[in-house]
């Protein structure tokens, strides 16, 4: 496995991350006993964290700096988890099911933040929500039962009602 041409598969986790990989885990995994500000400070990997960028992108999170992260709502925790990854310059962002268990309105907000992030860094996104995929994805890989069943552009997948029905087992959505 290579990142930017260098082999990384034998490195310990923290070294791989230091090479510029941001990770947003499936269940957010914010540090509930730490404050929002502490969660962000912990994530800063170098002397040039993008604090203003985070303030602009997540005003609600910024306003809650002193609050304990464990008392945030699910959506706010997701935003914090994203902010924690975006506070550094990354070469790759790994985002695992960012909309899981969130209310539709919050899903939209997460989508906006991810779209903003995608302007500056490539994102590998694991997602089941087709609206979010349509909004963000360029290329998609569909996995079914552990096997790859489709590789191609997002538009090719989502515009083909038959495929969506077949691979994802859901009726195609209205555009």
């Amino acid at each position, binding site marked *: 496995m290579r990142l930017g041409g260098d082999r990384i598969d034998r490195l310990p986790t*923290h070294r791989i*991350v230091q090479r510029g990989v941001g990770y947003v885990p499936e269940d957010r*995994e914010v*540090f*509930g006993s*730490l404050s929002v500000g502490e969660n962000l400070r912990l994530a800063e990997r170098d002397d040039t964290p993008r604090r203003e960028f985070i303030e602009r992108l997540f005003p609600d999170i910024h306003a809650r700096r002193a609050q304990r992260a464990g008392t945030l709502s699910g959506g706010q925790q997701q935003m914090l988890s994203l902010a*924690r990854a975006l506070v550094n310059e990354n070469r790759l962002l790994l985002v695992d099911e960012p909309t899981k268990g969130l209310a539709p309105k919050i899903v939209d907000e997460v989508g906006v933040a991810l779209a903003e992030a995608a302007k500056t860094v490539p994102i590998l996104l694991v997602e089941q929500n087709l609206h979010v995929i349509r909004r963000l994805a360029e290329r998609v890989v569909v996995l079914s039962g552990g096997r790859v069943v489709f590789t191609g552009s997002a538009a090719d997948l989502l515009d083909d009602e038959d495929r969506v029905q077949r691979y994802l087992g859901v009726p195609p959505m209205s555009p």
Partner: protein
Amino acid sequence: MSTVLLLVITGLGLGALYFLVASGLSLIYGLMGVLNFAHGAFLTIAAFIGWEVGRRVSDGTWWGLLVSALVGMIVGAVVAAATEYFLIRRLYERHIEQALITVGLALASVALFEGIWGTDPIYTAKPEWLTQTTEILGARIPNDRFLLIACAAVVLGAIVLFLQRTRYGLIIRAGVENRSMVTALGIDVRRSFTLVFAIGGAAAGLGGVLASVYYGYVSAHLGSLLLIFAFIVTVIGGLGSLTGAAIASVLVAVLQQFANFYLGGTGDLVVVIALAAVLLIRPRGLMGKVA
């Protein structure tokens, strides 16, 4: 009334000793999942070397005691950090082996200390004020209790400040909660393992010197004597919680004193019953995280 006050303050003093041992145990377990049975050995060697240096500098004076305490803290920190670096680290994530090696170290060190300093307790001199008592509301309180309480309070305050105000403290607090996520943020969490051992060792080292003041002697068994109660305190307080360890230290020691006085010397038994009750009713302890 004066008896109650004497029992409470003596309990607080003994609780201070328990806390100095339990604080390190709790932090180490919380961050690394290691039950460190060698913690008593850190205390004992610090007590011996602290006493050896202190008595040569100035035996039985405040100056000598201060030197003992500083030497004890340094010895405790260095021995603990070396234990982590050379032994525990090799067995990363292998908790059974880690526990076994600390048990082995604890047993071997007692034999080593007996070989060097003998099997009998060695009685130590202390500053005159510490041998006297102060009368409070009719109770004659031995002065060494105040020293123990003050030292434990300072250590508690210092560790809390360190955890709250420094980046390493932040990493340790986050690591106690979710170690793998700390790693996923690009932080080498193992570096803070050595640090936590050093802090715990320093606290235990100070505890060793103060234990020799409290009991009036140093002995190869000083560490194992206190370690049992420190483990009980750590479990009752909640593994990984410093505040829990502080509260439980006081509760256990005061309970012990009262049971010893009013229930015919059953203090140790009552403490074990309290441990069983906590494990049955609230297994994660008073302030522990959900396992």
